[in-house]
């Protein structure tokens, strides 16, 4: 704001007022011709109709808005403390944070049986968990390895189409197709990885973006194989280890002596995606503590240093791409079996952007942050369904807000993967002097 501040500000309020006034003048200049004069079809051709009240409203809004901002967020002395959270609050949050993950998992496990939970809630939870899983998968690539991937949805699509086509043409069951879909997606991950090995940052983002679009367009146009825009329907539903969720005598309900309910399958799907998501999380957490996970993080920090420490950066990047893609493949085949119908429309760029937004807003590299962001974004998106297109505005505003107040994402602290076990007690004779 320094460039707007007058040379000798008499008081902060006067400076803010002055600044707001100048802004209002600019708004007047813009609004007068654009909003104030409207052309109307008259009997003698076009004529101008003045609408000065609209201009007055616009200018007034700009003036008041700018003044409010000047006095709150943009105050010269507000900059330092704005993004800081008091240490006391931070400590309490940290203590709560330790309990947060177990409680959240317990809640997730109990969710279908909680009172007042209906089919809609479970359906929504399945959707949210799918994105949690995708977020965690992309977190390996973006959050840990630092490779900005804008085409992640391509692997989700590969997984979905793998399951759909394998199940339809070869009659393979979901449980056989799941690993196959993962392997195929990982294969495509490596395939994308090879040409982009030397790229970083913006360039990598553009290539991966293009890759995502290529996959979608191929799916759209390879008519005899993928069904093109018509998609693939009638994808087999998953069975409970061979037991179908049907009302018949050898269905799931009859075998376990339950009354048939369509809810059984939904709950089964819910636990399926919960398990898949938790596996993703577990694998990521374990990998972070292994040399490969550490190499990913080091790669994100400094690629040249990594290489001179003997890390094979080619293999490291490819494993990150492959693993991230594999989890997207799992999520994709789950998506296919849940929907029973897939088409290229489900795998547009918007999905990639959404998953990336979840990872960035959650705090890159943070597992809990990604989960919270997925719940907030997908849940919030559903919650505001009534608002139709306006929810995109809310969505944008929330994102701006998070980036202003939590620029490194919701959970920005990074948990070290290793701690020093022995205490600081070393014998005095072992310590050389004077080099600290």
């Amino acid at each position, binding site marked *: 704001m320094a460039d707007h501040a007058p040379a000798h500000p008499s008081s902060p309020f006067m400076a803010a007022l002055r600044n707001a006034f100048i802004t209002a003048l600019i708004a007047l200049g813009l609004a007068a011709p654009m909003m104030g004069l409207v052309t109307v079809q008259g009997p003698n051709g076009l004529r101008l109709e003045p609408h000065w009240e609209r201009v007055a409203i616009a200018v007034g809004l700009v003036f008041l808005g700018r003044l409010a901002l000047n006095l709150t967020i943009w105050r010269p002395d507000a900059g330092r403390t704005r993004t800081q959270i008091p240490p006391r609050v931070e400590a309490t949050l940290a203590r709560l944070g330790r309990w947060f993950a177990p409680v959240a998992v317990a809640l997730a496990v109990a969710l279908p049986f909680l009172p007042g939970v209906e089919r809609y809630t479970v359906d929504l939870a399945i959707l949210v968990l799918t994105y949690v899983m995708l977020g965690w998968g992309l977190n390996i690539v973006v959050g840990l390895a630092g490779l900005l991937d804008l085409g992640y949805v391509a692997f989700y699509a590969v997984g979905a189409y793998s399951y759909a086509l394998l199940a339809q043409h070869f009659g393979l069951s979901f449980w056989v197709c799941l690993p196959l879909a993962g392997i195929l997606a990982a294969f495509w991950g490596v395939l994308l990885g090879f040409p982009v090995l030397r790229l970083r940052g913006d360039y990598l983002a553009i290539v991966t973006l293009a890759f995502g679009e290529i996959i979608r367009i191929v799916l759209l146009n390879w008519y005899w194989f993928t069904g093109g825009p018509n998609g693939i329907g009638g994808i087999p539903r998953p069975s409970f280890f061979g037991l179908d969720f049907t009302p018949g005598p050898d269905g799931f309900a009859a075998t376990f002596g339950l009354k048939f309910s369509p809810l059984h399958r939904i709950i089964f799907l819910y636990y399926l995606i919960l398990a898949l998501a938790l596996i993703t999380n577990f694998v990521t957490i374990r990998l972070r503590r292994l040399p490969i996970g550490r190499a990913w*993080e080091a790669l994100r920090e400094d690629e040249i240093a*990594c290489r001179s420490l003997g890390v094979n950066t080619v293999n490291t990047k490819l494993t990150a791409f492959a693993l991230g893609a594999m989890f997207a493949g799992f999520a994709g085949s789950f998506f296919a079996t849940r929907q029973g119908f897939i088409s290229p429309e489900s795998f547009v760029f918007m999905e990639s952007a959404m998953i990336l937004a979840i990872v960035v807003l959650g705090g890159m590299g943070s597992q809990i942050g990604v989960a919270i962001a997925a719940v907030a974004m997908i849940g919030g998106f559903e919650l505001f369904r009534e608002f139709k297109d306006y929810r995109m505005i809310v969505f944008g505003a929330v994102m701006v807000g998070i980036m202003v107040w939590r620029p490194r994402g919701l959970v920005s602290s990074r948990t070290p993967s290793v701690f020093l076990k022995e205490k600081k007690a*070393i014998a005095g004779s072992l310590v*050389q002097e004077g080099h600290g």
Partner: protein
Amino acid sequence: MSEAMLSLRGVTAYYGAIAALKGVDIEVPAGEIVTLIGANGAGKSTLMMTIFGAPRARDGSILFDGRDITHLPTYEIARLKIAQSPEGRRIFPRMTVLENLQMGAAVTQFAHFDEDLRRVFDIFPRLKDRASQRGGTLSGGEQQMLAIARALMSRPRLLLLDEPSLGLAPLIAKQIFSVVGELNRNEGLTVFLVEQNAYHALKLAHRGYVMVNGQITMSGGGLELLERPEVRAAYLEGGR
């Protein structure tokens, strides 16, 4: 001379069409500290990077223990137990000190990690206090210690140090140099040191090279170079 651990023979390197190294010959005998001094832009750091294969030498050859490493990928060169503390330290800022050191031990497959960790903490006790702190929060001197400690974690036979005194207070720089000297005396570590701080570097080194515009213009014993009027005029009295 035939016993040289690292020898560069007629090495040239280019950035696009610009020649950064114009036929460099350097010998680093086992168990010695060899230093390379020169002004900004002389090609010192390029030489250091060329030993590690990026940028790759266009002509000439780089031999380590008599083996031609000119065309090996960087990570394979590192696995031959050549460690580097690069210019500008290049530690991993968001990872903790301990994690940085773990990265240094990557080439050893963690065979003797605890032992090596104790050793570098003995050399740099400050790092032990900071073990769980993020690398980026360390002071410049501590970051330099971390960069050297990280390089030592791989139990290197040859340590390449690129401007360890860069941006450090004279006292801290002196400490760093004395640690390097001790490592050489006590453990027989071979060191190739690139420095702008000609006085300290030449005093420490057994042998020195002077580089101007991508070429070696002078070489000799460390103290011998220090006595030469040309060196004194160009790198000591005028420059400092």
